[in-house]
């Protein structure tokens, strides 16, 4: 019998899908070990209702650390508190979402606990009583199957890859007050600027509409924005490296090597040829659609569905028909 711990991050008091995926994955792995899933959530006061909902996705218990100074993520505060929570229990594995916060936090906690870390994992099973861990390496050209000879096994999981499963049981939330002293912190967040138009980040989107050189010029992006808007709330824009380097789009939208890695439910590549650097950032997407005038473009090699042709003719029709489809739902 072995328990598994998940870290469920909150942002502005909300616990997002990446955190739910981590909790559900912890519950699945724990049940394969014959144990149960426990969750740590850290934040400012007033989180107990949000933390309580984690029972529905598999948490047997939630340790909720509330402190004014932890309302926003700061590694100097979160690292020690999470490390102490992990050290106080007996866990076979610790699962953290590979979000910006998780990727920042997990290595520090692993170093504090003196255990190795497997990052941005896409496959996690228990085989013959041991964890079988899989992650893409070499820009997705190979998959590494990892073993960890330490306890707990620290793992960050790629968002959007693991399912959220519904559970009947309610998690029991127990609050604690972490001992933190912000005056000793050597890192201070002086400003947080939300995306100008409040749009969803490409790494969090369930649908991504990405544009490349084939869009010809930045003035043509409203065509992609229309498609994104038609696809609804979970959709975001992405971009190839070429158009970011050309200054057409901000770096925050870049998908691929030297940009972001995404794994949405649906990835639509428009006018993107599909260089290996781009594929590295999106090939674990569940469904890939490519629209390109060149039938030999490498993007069609990873696409599930392709349309060959002039994107300037295809995009308006696509946006229009998606909009009417969504309106009929």
């Amino acid at each position: 019998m072995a328990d598994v711990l998940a870290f469920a991050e909150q942002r502005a008091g909300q616990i997002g899908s990446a955190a739910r995926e981590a909790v559900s994955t912890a519950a699945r792995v724990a049940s394969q070990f014959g144990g149960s899933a426990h969750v740590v959530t850290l934040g400012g006061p007033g989180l107990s209702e949000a933390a309580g909902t984690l029972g529905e996705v598999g948490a047997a218990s939630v340790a909720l650390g509330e402190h004014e100074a932890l309302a926003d993520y700061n590694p100097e505060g979160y690292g020690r508190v999470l490390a102490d929570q992990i050290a106080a229990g007996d866990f076979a594995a610790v699962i953290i979402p590979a979000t910006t916060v998780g990727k920042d936090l997990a290595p520090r906690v692993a170093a504090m606990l003196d255990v190795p870390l497997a990052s941005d994992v896409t496959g996690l099973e228990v085989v013959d009583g041991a964890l079988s861990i899989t992650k893409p390496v070499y820009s997705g050209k190979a998959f590494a199957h990892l073993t960890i000879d330490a306890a707990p096994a620290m793992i960050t999981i790629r968002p959007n890859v693991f399912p959220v499963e519904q559970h009947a049981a309610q998690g029991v939330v127990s609050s604690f007050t972490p001992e933190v002293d912000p005056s000793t912190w050597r890192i201070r967040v002086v400003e947080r600027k939300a995306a100008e138009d409040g749009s969803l980040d490409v790494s969090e989107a369930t649908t991504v509409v990405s544009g490349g050189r084939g869009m010809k010029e930045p003035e043509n992006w409203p065509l992609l924005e229309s498609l994104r808007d038609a696809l609804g709330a979970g959709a975001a824009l992405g971009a190839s490296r070429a158009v970011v380097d050309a200054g057409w789009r901000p770096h925050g939208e870049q998908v691929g090597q030297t940009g972001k890695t995404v794994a949405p439910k649906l990835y639509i590549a428009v006018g993107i040829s599909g260089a290996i650097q781009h594929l590295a950032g999106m090939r674990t997407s569940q469904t890939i659609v490519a629209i390109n005038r060149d039938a030999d473009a490498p993007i069609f090699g990873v696409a599930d569905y392709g349309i060959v042709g002039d994107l300037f003719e295809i995009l308006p029709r696509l946006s229009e028909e998606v909009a009417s489809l969504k309106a009929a739902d």
Partner: protein
Amino acid sequence: MPQPEYTSLNVTVCVKRVPDTETRIRTDGTGIDPTGVKFIVSPYDEFAIEAALRSKEAAGDGTVSLLSLGEAAAQESLRAGLAMGADSALLLTGEMGMDGLATAKVLASELDGSDSALILFGVKAADDDQQQVGPMVATLLNRPCVTGVASFEVKGDVAVCHRETEGGVEVTEVDLPAVLTITKGEYEPRYASLKGIMAAKRKPLEQKEATSSPARLRVARLSEPPPRAAGRIVGEGPDAVPELLRLLREEANAL
């Protein structure tokens, strides 16, 4: 305690030699067959070298030192960094696997007591994508660490860092000495000039055996990526749109 003002800035950049992204990878069980593989400085580490050179230039004086752990052939990567403008390099020869903590321990033992106000890393290595060694080294050295820095500026005894987060930008102030991991941001790496390449040949490049740190995370096996079901061209031009949407909805359940 009064903090130093950095009119002279010493920066150490940790770099990793990785297979070129474009190169074909043949797996041979637990590793890759290096035959015919071209190796490069991991692209994120090039951003870090560029960032180090710019911050030294902004301070007006100082040094940029490179540090790498790997096989003797990694000398080549360090020479490339020296050609960009770094002043000196140290290669710790030894095994470097996927256990980032084992790597971090080796680097931290070398960096313990370093006079560098900044230790920079690429945000991740382009080969194993573990994105962990920088913050681990910082934790072991008890230095603060800011990850995913798109640009920064040294102001007095702090570095003001801009980092991209989900749906926004965060401005973070970190006390020096600090560890930063650098992403692409504004740091398009400079090309090495011919003069730089010539000068690099005379710059100090030291090599010594790394302290050993046993790996507890290992690659049991490398495999081909799971095959994607063969894709299909739905059609040509806008007339293919209705069929695409039907497939996305009914077959892929993606809409």
